């Protein structure tokens, strides 16, 4: 089947119009038939064209009569409720497509502002944002905080059952894990960091850090505003988990 883009207007060329009519009528009736079979329902079609004195009907004149009769027997409201002509049908499609467009735009905006949020977290300034951007950014941050809170809550509920982990500085037991992490950390690819079990990471961070230490990291991070190049040079990010420097700052035993 040729896939030329057809302009949706009356075809002025007579032979072209007749040919199109033949093809499309055939396709249309095929679709009616398929719908009828696939969904096990009653359907009918009536087509008046300049090429035939008699209307073409599907499936058969008898069946069409039956269906029209059944149709007319329904209450007027039920008949007209889902009745459309070209105008109303197009209006419906426009309304639906506009809804889809709005939703897609909203989703894209959320994605966009989420990226701005992450860039801002690592130091990119807010001075490029106008008031509308800031508004939306605030919304995205609030949403993220809410999701984080939920996740924290569920993690705490899980942790409530097992006994709390041993306090730092730890004995020899955690040491093997530390060694493993460091060897991982020396690799330059971030992929590894990502793939590591969150549990192992958790243990390490629990042992090695305290919250004030982390706040300090964050404050340094927020301060060094203009020097931060997001994503361009991994070494400049304080969360440079791949360098050994990171680990040397923690009070390992």
């Amino acid at each position: 089947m040729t896939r030329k883009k057809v302009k949706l207007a009356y075809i002025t060329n007579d032979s072209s119009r007749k040919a199109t009519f033949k093809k499309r009528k055939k396709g249309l009736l095929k679709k009616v038939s398929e719908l009828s079979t696939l969904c096990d329902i009653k359907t009918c079609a009536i087509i008046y064209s300049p090429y035939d004195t008699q209307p073409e009907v599907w499936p058969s004149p008898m069946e069409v009569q039956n269906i029209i009769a059944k149709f007319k027997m329904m209450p007027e409201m039920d008949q007209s409720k889902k009745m459309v002509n070209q105008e109303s049908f197009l209006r419906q499609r426009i309304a639906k497509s506009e809804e889809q467009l709005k939703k897609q735009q909203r989703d894209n905006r959320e994605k966009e502002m989420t990226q701005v949020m992450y860039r801002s977290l690592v130091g990119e300034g807010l001075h490029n944002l106008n008031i509308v951007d800031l508004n939306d950014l605030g919304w995205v941050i609030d949403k993220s905080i809410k999701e984080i809170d939920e996740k924290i809550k569920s993690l705490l509920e899980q942790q409530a059952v097992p006994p709390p982990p041993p306090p730092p500085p730890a004995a020899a037991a955690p040491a093997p894990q530390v060694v493993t992490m460091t060897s991982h950390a020396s690799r330059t690819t971030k992929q590894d960091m990502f793939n590591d079990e969150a549990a192992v990471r958790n243990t390490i961070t629990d042992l090695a850090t305290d919250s004030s230490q982390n706040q300090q990291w964050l404050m340094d991070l927020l301060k060094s505003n203009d020097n931060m190049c997001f994503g361009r040079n991994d070494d400049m990010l304080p969360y440079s988990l791949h360098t050994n420097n990171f680990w040397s700052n923690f009070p390992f035993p």
Partner: protein
Amino acid sequence: MVKKRASIGRQKIPIAKIPKKNHLQVTFSKRRSGLFKKASELCTLCGVEIAIIVFSPAEKVFSFGHPEVESILDRYLTRNPPPESTAHQLIEAHRTANVREFNIHLTQILNQLEAEKKRGEALDQIRKSNQRQFWWEAPFNQLGLHELEQLRASMEELKKNVVKQANKILIGSTTNSSQFLAVNGIGSSADLFENKHAEFNASSTMPNVYNFGYGNGLF
């Protein structure tokens, strides 16, 4: 975040009654709409008149007719030729013009929709590649408790700065910005988020209370 699962794509199905009820209903809905669309196109392209009646699985009735379902049914039942009054032709001409307008409008919207979808996919790609690089961009489900608390603290700070920046823009910043900086742990970096390109709105009559009504952007 909203994640849409990739659909299965076009599949060839046997032409027989669909076994699963919800598949059947979805198929009905989509195909009925597509059928009416094709019928509408045939009318516009070839100047023909059509009526289609469809009974839904739930015994509701859908119908499409050009110019009208009723007139086509009457014409068929009574075997009468169609009326050709000038009033009738005028109505038809008006209708055709409307339909043309609607089609143009619809095409516009569909093109925009297509563009936005592509943009969404591009944004997803960026997010994906960022997630591979930076642990804090990972979905929250994959983060440990400590990381989450860390992240949360960062976000709280960021939120405060956002509010400050917003206030700055709304109220204007001819004076130094220190009067707006609350001392809340950010330290002495008064030049932290100083707006070097401050949009000073001299005629602003907004009150000092910043209203985070999320109705300005798209939210």
